């Protein structure tokens, strides 16, 4: 056996010992363990639901934003020559990427298609099309939509200029506001959970005062003494992530099953169950672990001075 083998062997043994110690502590502090895990659980359920909603809203907003186009309705009075001039003028604008001409026949077809069965009625208009020809303008940057639209509005023969920016901006505003409110709420909860964990660890440290004193006396290293407390915090945090993950998986599974079919055929989508739910689980476990380790770190630093 080489010395490195001896070393890894010792580390595995030490880790086992630390794990055993932390479990023992968890059991010994029954009620505090329960309280801490519950606090983490409540916190993470809220974090999880919030995260799921935010990520989906974000996804929707991003798809809409990417799809933002400006639809310029051309005045019926414009001749073909006028239209050509206008197209060139729009193309010359700095932030415009592409300009596409969509004749009124195509517009009507699109309208009929989008209305499905009810659209059949509009077929009557095929002889006498009341719609305008349209330029579909795309900007290089979605944020530029509004500026470009305003410039086009000033042009001759531009009868109506429409763009989806208003809606996207409203959606982003909503996301931002609810994100801030949510974050404040969650930070409060995170601190509560952390405080409870740190209190649990403090109780453990006090209960094991003599043991710690002897460890110091016989020459155990600081990290050896601290490890079980970090592990205890870690376990409290990770245990608190279990119920939220299971619950949110179920909820999202049903929500997805309900919403996804109803969005079919539209260009907006919600995030697919797989892999999204694994990302959610990873976030929750990581957050639980973080709360736990941080909580124990606070107590270890305060009550386990060298």
């Amino acid at each position, binding site marked *: 056996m080489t010395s490195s083998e*001896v070393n890894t062997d*010792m580390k595995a*043994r*030490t880790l086992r*010992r630390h794990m055993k110690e932390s479990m023992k502590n968890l059991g010994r502090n029954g009620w505090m363990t329960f309280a801490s895990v519950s606090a983490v659980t409540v916190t993470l359920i809220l974090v999880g639901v919030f995260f799921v909603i935010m990520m989906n809203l974000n996804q929707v907003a991003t798809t809409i934003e990417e799809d933002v186009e400006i639809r310029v309705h051309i005045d019926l009075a414009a001749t073909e020559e006028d239209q050509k001039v206008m197209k060139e003028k729009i193309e010359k604008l700095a932030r415009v990427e592409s300009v596409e001409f969509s004749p009124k026949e195509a517009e009507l077809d699109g309208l009929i298609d989008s209305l499905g069965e009810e659209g059949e009625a509009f077929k009557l208009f095929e002889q006498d099309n009341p719609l305008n020809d349209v330029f579909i303008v795309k900007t290089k940057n979605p944020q530029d939509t509004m500026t470009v639209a305003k410039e086009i509005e000033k042009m001759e023969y531009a009868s109506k200029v429409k763009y989806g920016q208003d809606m996207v901006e409203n959606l982003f505003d909503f996301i931002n506001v609810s994100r801030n409110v949510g974050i404040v709420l969650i930070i409060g909860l995170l601190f509560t959970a952390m405080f409870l964990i740190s209190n649990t660890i403090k109780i453990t440290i006090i209960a094991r005062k*003599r*043991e710690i*004193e*002897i*460890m*110091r*006396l*016989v*020459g*155990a*290293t*600081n990290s*050896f*003494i601290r490890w079980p407390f970090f592990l205890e915090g870690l376990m409290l945090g990770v245990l608190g992530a279990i119920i939220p993950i299971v619950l949110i998986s179920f909820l999202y599974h049903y929500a997805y099953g309900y919403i996804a079919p109803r969005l079919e055929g539209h260009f907006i989508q919600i995030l697919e169950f797989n892999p999204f739910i694994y990302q959610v689980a990873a976030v929750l476990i990581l957050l639980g672990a973080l709360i736990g380790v941080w909580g124990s770190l606070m107590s270890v630093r305060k009550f386990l001075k*060298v």
Partner: protein
Amino acid sequence: MIDMQDVFKKYPNGVVAANGINVHIAQGEFVYVVGPSGAGKSTFIKMMYREEKPTQGTITINGIDLGKLKDSKVPLLRRNIGVVFQDFKLLPTLTVYENVAFALEVIEEEPKKIKKRVMETLDLVNLKHKARMLPTELSGGEQQRVSIARSIVNSPKVMIADEPTGNLDPETSWDIMNLFDEINNRGTTIVMATHNRDIVNTMRHRVIAIEGGQIIRDEQRGEYGYES
């Protein structure tokens, strides 16, 4: 082995518990530290295993300059010093065997070696037959022997004891002293603070008397020198 040069210790509350101590203790010596209550005996001893740091002066143990020793290296120093107290500081939920093994487990010794060393040491302190008992099932003298076993199980070069017989009746105290003598005869340096006049005057060793944080007397095969 143990060297103190111009050591001062002033506690944060202003009490000066060491007031210019100079002493040299050689490997294998047996030293009693005597003096009235509050003289600074415990402080003298605590500075050796770096439970307290001197405010001034140098302490060298086993070639290690404690003033230059980083906090993170203190555990390594402690592994070479066995410490025994008046209250045995045993863990009540662990058996005799487990209490002794604890000292090796927490310094990550190999399991095979732990078993061998613990059994050897329990044999030395004559408690092999009570290895599975809990401390509460033992007499005071037996508990102190467990605590001694724990302090020497890692074969330290120095053993420090602060009034190890303070809680024991005279007869039991003699058992403990005989054990100390045996450990000393194996080459371990022993420094022991005590108020036990009988022991100091009968089992003769070097005596260092401290008063007001100063060494006022240091004699080979000395006497206790106080009415107790």
